[in-house]
């Protein structure tokens, strides 16, 4: 039987999926770092992005003045643009800021998990803000007017809008985590893929493929895929449980 590419791939895949594949301490280290970097970025990102999305979604700036409306429009456009920010570009910018000769060079953060968290933070803030904003915006008018008509104060009505958008906020956080944990270009540049220090699942996969160790690459890929699956499963369950509007 000829050794075709398909045969090799299939064999490797089967080997990786065997229960006794080498789940050594390095793989564990890599997995935990992935979770730590992306988890921290999303946590901080949520603390910033959710309130920002709430304010924008509640049309906090939609005053009658032309200037306020212009600011609102500009902010929304910026967020929508940044939602699709290429991670590699973010990585590049953060690199230029943190590199020895850069403005933040003296902090000595380049090639550290902190640098990676900063990179992913910049990436997830627009995602969390944008998804929260649209979740709040989609129920804003109907819920606010309903609450006001039932005798709520402006503040009580705003609270009700946020409460009704809570599923959307959760979705924002999960989507952001999914994007962060599978991101590779940005953290490769700012983290440097240093073994036992800044190597994550995605950067390690790139490394192993480059070295030709497909077996290890596939093992890592399966772990990453399982993580992505778990995240999407959680998202789907939330969406199914949340009644439709």
């Amino acid at each position, binding site marked *: 039987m000829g050794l075709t590419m398909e045969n090799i791939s299939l064999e490797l895949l089967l080997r990786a999926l065997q229960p006794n594949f080498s789940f050594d301490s390095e793989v564990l280290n890599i997995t935990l770092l992935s979770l730590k970097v992306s988890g921290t970025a999303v946590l901080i990102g949520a603390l910033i992005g959710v309130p920002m999305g709430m304010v924008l979604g509640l049309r906090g700036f939609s005053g009658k003045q032309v200037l306020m409306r212009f600011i609102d429009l500009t902010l929304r456009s910026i967020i929508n643009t940044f939602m699709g920010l290429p991670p590699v570009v973010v990585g590049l910018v953060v690199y230029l800021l943190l590199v020895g000769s850069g403005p933040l060079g003296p902090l000595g953060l380049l090639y550290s998990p902190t640098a990676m968290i900063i990179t992913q933070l910049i990436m997830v803030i627009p995602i969390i803000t944008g998804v929260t904003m649209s979740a709040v915006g989609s129920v804003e008018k109907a819920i606010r007017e309903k609450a006001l008509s039932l005798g709520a104060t402006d503040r009580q009505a705003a609270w009700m809008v946020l409460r009704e958008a809570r599923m959307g906020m959760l979705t924002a956080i999960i989507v952001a985590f999914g994007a962060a944990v599978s991101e590779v270009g940005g953290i490769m540049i700012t983290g440097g893929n240093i073994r036992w220090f800044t190597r994550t699942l995605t950067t390690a996969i790139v490394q192993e493929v480059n070295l030709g160790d497909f077996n290890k690459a596939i093992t890592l890929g399966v772990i990453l895929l399982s993580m992505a699956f778990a995240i999407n499963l959680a998202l789907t369950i939330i969406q199914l449980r949340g*009644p439709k509007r």
Partner: protein
Amino acid sequence: MPFIETQSLYKEYSGRQVLKDINFKVQSGEIFVLVGPNGAGKTTLLRILDLLEEPSSGTVLFDGTQMNYNSAKHRLALRRRIGIVFQQTVLFNMSVFENVAYGLKVKGESDKSIKQRVKEALELVQLHGFEQKNALALSGGEAQRVALAQALVIEPELLLLDEPTANLDPRNVSIVEEALSRVNREKKTTMIMATHNMLQAENLAQRVAAFNEGRIERIGAFHEIFEAPSKFVVDFARLENVFSGVSRVTGEGTSIVDVGDGVQIETALEKTGNTTVFVRPEDIILSLNPIVSSARNSFEGRIVEVSDLRAIVRLRVKAGRDFTVQITKRSFNDMQLNIDSKVFLAFKASSVQTV
């Protein structure tokens, strides 16, 4: 002193006038009904009365006091005396109890009083036992009844209703109508309601305002407006099965109107000459076989159009002229009807009304 009075109210959206010179007075305890086609300005007027929108010019007097749209405090105080039911049901993602309790909670009512009043409101809309269900899991009709309970629980002095039964099946419509008449009777709640449903207008309204293109064309008792023949009344009311033709008296107390295409409609009125008559879709009986009955009018035709309105199905039947017929979804399914099905229509001469 009228309870609600509008004085030359205008509303404009980016150059388009949706309300023009609206003047009317509603007495305390009155049910005042706004009828007219979509886009006539009824919803906008109700939103202005609930202070959700500000008129471009003109004033609204509520119990003798001018509505002040710029003071949050004034808006809040007034809204707590006004209830509104929107055409599109909006409920919060929480239990039925919490939904109905909301209007009392924001006012800081005691838990004990909230419990009692929510119970009463739910009984009024025949939803006792629904307290713990999630409001978003209800059927359309149940959801709209919860929305009505939300508005009623605050015991508003003025209740605004925007097509509250537009998307409901007959059973839910009758529950809503019953609750409304009871509240009006027992609590003397003033109501301003927009509706398409002429039967509802006739049943509930003390007075009707006929809206057309942002203006009130006429105000008066239902019969004053609808007994006076006028083409615009027919147009805006969107009456269906309106036929014009030449009428002749039969000598048996009825008349036969020849409406063309071989269709002759018998009416229980004695009229000669040019006449316009209409039959309500719900007054027409539809069957698969010719039926022997007391109905003086019977026609054979084919279904040419089916529109599904949840529990109700509206059919367009070509029987010489086109007739609109309304039947329940269940009958529609039981009779296995479809486009091009052959059907028979029957209605009484006394169901035929003149415009």
